[in-house]
């Protein structure tokens, strides 16, 4: 019985940690696609860029970890402003197919560029000593880095949720996405608003890629390989809000971990089966306000 309880604790912990990893690497997409309604399949490009910035800052410039994390947010956000002004803003009103084709093209280009600059091997993440090793909770040992991820992501979701659902900025973004012409006519500078929101979303993607780099390896094909996980989290969570992807990531993380722990021979199928069932039950996602 004690063994069962203790395995329950570890499944719960690892499940939450895995859910947080999924959430962290998808959080940027929940802003650009979930909130702004842009089918941004190139989300992984921003996440990968954040990961590369973190790895290089740690390995080549020996920066402290928190500074490297902040840098991955700032640099990716700044670069995304350029991309947004030059490319993305032209496609805000475009059909989904055009957005998909554009962002897929962006992925192909970024994969080639990343390979050219960083080579094909995965980047080592040189974590500081205080984030390494095990951490004891309830007599069981858990990896410190995962504890850190859980705490960090929980803070991030709280901040984001407050920002989008409880501030004027959030209200303006939601209004502008729903009806851009009307928002403009009541005096909202939607162009600037969208640029800022896109930069925040991309910056979060960069931060997520950097945070997840220790577990989800950073290498040139990252944007393609992880795409399916980003999309699962955002589509199961539902478009148009920020809570959805968080709950979805947690749900998938915990059930997937439980499945892999107790019935590993079926471990591979579960995440996909669960996605199909959830979407059949609620096509707009768990908290989707629009399909």
């Amino acid at each position: 019985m004690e063994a069962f309880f203790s395995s329950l604790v570890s499944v719960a912990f690892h499940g939450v940690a895995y859910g947080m990893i999924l959430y962290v690497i998808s959080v940027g997409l929940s802003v650009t696609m979930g909130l702004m309604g842009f089918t941004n399949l190139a989300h992984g490009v921003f996440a990968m860029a954040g990961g590369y910035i973190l790895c290089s800052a740690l390995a080549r410039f020996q920066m402290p970890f928190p500074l490297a994390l902040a840098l991955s947010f700032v640099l990716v956000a700044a670069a995304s402003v350029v991309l947004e002004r030059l490319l993305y803003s032209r496609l805000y009103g475009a059909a989904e197919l055009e957005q998909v084709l554009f962002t897929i093209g962006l992925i192909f280009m970024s994969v080639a560029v990343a390979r050219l600059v960083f080579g094909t091997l995965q980047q080592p993440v040189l974590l500081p000593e205080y984030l390494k090793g095990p951490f004891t909770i309830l007599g069981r040992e858990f990896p410190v880095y995962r504890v850190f991820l859980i705490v960090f992501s929980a803070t991030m979701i709280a901040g984001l949720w407050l920002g989008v659902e409880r501030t004027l900025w959030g209200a303006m973004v939601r209004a502008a996405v729903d009806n851009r012409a009307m928002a403009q006519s009541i005096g909202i500078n939607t162009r600037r608003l969208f640029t800022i929101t896109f930069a925040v979303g991309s910056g979060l993607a960069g931060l997520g890629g950097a945070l997840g780099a220790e577990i989800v390896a950073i290498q040139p094909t990252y944007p393609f390989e992880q795409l399916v996980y980003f999309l699962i989290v955002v589509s199961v969570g539902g478009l148009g809000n920020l809570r959805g992807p968080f709950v979805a990531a947690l749900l998938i993380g915990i059930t997937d971990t439980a499945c892999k722990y107790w019935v590993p021979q079926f471990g591979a199928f579960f995440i996909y089966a669960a996605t199909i069932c959830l979407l059949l039950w609620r096509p707009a996602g768990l908290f989707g306000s629009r399909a």
Partner: protein
Amino acid sequence: MKISTSIGATLAAATLACTFPAAAQTVKIGLISSYSGPGAAQGDQIDKGVKLYMKLNADKLPPGVKVELITRDDTGANGDVAKRVAQELIVRDKVQILTGVVWTPNMAAIAPLTAEAKVPFISANAAGAKVVGMSPYVARLSFTLCQSAYPLGQWASKKYKRAYTAVSDFAPGHEAEGCFIRGFKEGGGEVIGSVRIPLANPDFVPFMQRIKDAKPDALFAFNPAGKQATAMMKAYGDLGMDKANIKYLGTGDITTDEELQGMGDAALGVITVHHYSAAAERPANKAFVAAYKKEYGADLNPGFMVVGAWDAMDAIYTAIRVQGGKIDPDKTMEIIKQYKNANSPRGPVSVDPETRDVINPEYLREVRKVGGKLANVELETITNAIKDPLKEFEKKK
């Protein structure tokens, strides 16, 4: 009239070519590797091995004979593409010898073509056991998984009583699992559990936690070389399994020389059996590693795929030399069946004339820090020449 003159001219040219084989001969070699896609890191290793060999060994060709290398991208584990590019190389570019290929399924797709077109294919990696038998024109100079997993199982059974196996869920993983278990059980060990992990798997922690809770003495792991192996190693370290006295064992694929630095200290103490380590002290290997670093950068180590490509090219160059640059497919295969090299970077390597598969040395290695960097330090030579044990088991049946 015109026709007969041109025939005459051709005949004259042909006679000339026969009498003076030294007159500028070009041997065309087709290299198929993964230059894009998820396996690009591995494909890159083969490319580097082939090109480094060609650059440093031009003097091993007979006078007047040149080698032209034509490269093609198979985009990853993708049999259809591999078959198409092999066909192009054979039909359009008229290559006389093929080499390369990271992936076993790609080699399986190409093998029937080599038999049809009579173009020898010398594999530089693709370790699946059965593919060499698919065509009389295929030979292999890389390795098979059983060559390392089986002796590792035998060795481990002397030191550990209870083992758990965790392998990637695809054919080579199943081979490694089967061979380790066979060796381990023959030595009296007990396998208390086995798990097969999907190839597309972002988080290894749940599997590893299950293994930790089962409390084995040793964990045998196999993942394809690359980020899967790194992620599993990290999960082993994160969960403190080394402190729980669970020894991490595997084939050399899990601690490849090129990826090792990215794995971090979790890899320290991991025991593997394999045919090649960049840290090996053999003079032939030291020269090889130095040449590699000079060409591609001091921070890079050659992995076993570079050596596979290097030895495949050495076999091909031997065949070219013996035939004076005139490639006959059947003669080429006869020469390659007799191929032996006591001074490969991996030590003595040869081809088994019966199966056309590689005969390898195998070393027991431990990951240690050498000069501040992680390295696969060779502890002892397990054997100087092992044939693929899987084929030997089948013979006994």
